[in-house]
């Protein structure tokens, strides 16, 4: 089950202004507090952070919201996914995720194919794209589809599962659920 959280709505609740910018560490902390309250009350295993309606995103807010939620999620079994991200927000997200060696799957506005942001290898990105297009697969099938060695595919899959961008069920790897 996927729980969707609108950052724009939480931003307006947090700062009580009509602005659409996720800026300042204080704002990020306030928005994150509201997200954590929603997560505590929710039942979903996957949480979709929806950036629709948000314009500017600065480093401080990206760190307070996305990085800190991902760091907290690493201690549980919750999966975090970003949606409605603008291309202009990529830089702040990539920067803070790389800083913490984190990665997350994200859907960008106007783009069909989801992307992976943050501290992740090129091989892992290719595997994620293959799982999305070709569907879930076990290690041997995936290595065959990509014409890679099994070892190479295993390393990339391990990276994706560690970041919870893919999960393994009965030997088959599934990409994270995206809208």
């Amino acid at each position, binding site marked *: 089950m996927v729980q969707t959280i609108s950052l724009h709505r939480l931003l307006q609740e947090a700062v009580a202004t009509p602005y659409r910018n996720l800026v300042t560490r204080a704002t990020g902390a306030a928005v994150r507090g509201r997200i954590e309250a929603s997560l505590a009350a929710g039942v979903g295993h996957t949480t979709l952070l929806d950036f629709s309606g948000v314009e500017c*995103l600065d480093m401080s807010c990206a760190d307070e919201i996305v990085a800190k939620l991902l760091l907290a999620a690493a201690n549980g079994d919750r999966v975090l996914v970003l949606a409605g991200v603008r291309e*202009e927000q990529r830089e702040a997200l990539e920067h*803070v995720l790389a800083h*913490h060696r984190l990665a997350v799957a994200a859907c960008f506005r106007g783009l069909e194919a989801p992307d992976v942001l943050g501290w992740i290898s090129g091989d892992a990105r290719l595997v994620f794209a293959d799982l999305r297009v070709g569907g879930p697969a076990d290690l041997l099938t995936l290595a065959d589809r990509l014409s890679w060695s099994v070892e190479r595919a295993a390393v990339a899959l391990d990276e994706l599962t560690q970041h919870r961008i893919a999960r393994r069920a009965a030997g088959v790897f599934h990409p994270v659920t995206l809208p």
Partner: protein
Amino acid sequence: MTRVVEVPAHFDDRSFDQFAAHFGAWPPEERVLIDARGTQWASPYGLVGLLTTGQALAEARRERPLLTVPASDDVKRYWTRIGFFAHAADLFEVHGKVPKAGHTGPSDSLLDVTPIRASEDIHEIVGKIQENAARILTSELGIEAKATMGFAMALSESCQNIVEHAGTSGWVAVQTYTFRRRLGRRVVVIAVSDAGVGFRRSLESTQARRFGDRWGDASALEAALIQNVSRFRDPGRGQGLAGIKRYLSRWQGKISIRSGTARLSIVPAWDEDVPLVDHLPFFPGAQVQVTIPAQHAES
């Protein structure tokens, strides 16, 4: 006794040291007279620095300083348009005729002189700048439209240093002008200044031991700007200046931070500034200037 502090004729980040040298030991014991009569031009850095002077003297519980306004009508009109005199009236005993705000025409600045006291002010500033920034960055500076958001991010992070570290309020202004002397191109300049504790005191408890005998204003700036160190233990801190540097590297921009007695800059190829200047005349707080040049020469 009154200490006369002359504002340089061309008042910017370079001549600011000449201005600061007039104060001697800080805070000066005597009443201060800021004499701007001979000033022919002031950058946003100069103007927010002047307001910081008034604020720092007030916070040091010194007598309200005097300010004599520029003799030039053009300069007075510009200082009024950009909102300088509206704030100066709260900090200085202003001497000389100041044009009324509505009689000087609309401001052509990207962001007039604006106080920063809290996080909400930064929301206001980023909201305002986005209305004009896209048009000016693309048409005047040749920077692609999608970089506008990076500019707003750089502005937000520059201002947050005040809210997070200064321990007092500060000022920001953003202006475009032609940088004839050093570049011969249009530039957009973000100037941020506060009268707070400065980088050395902000970082002292966590960094002084690491630097040992080298510890001072210059090494504190090095820790913050080069090593992305923050006084907070939170490992996510210190990314703001790193993000600004990354944005500026793409657009051949410059960042310069003056704090206490030192100034540290990331100097692009077009500028002849030295990266580090130490043993400057003391000035309270921190002054930040971010400069982004047009990507093409003026025709």
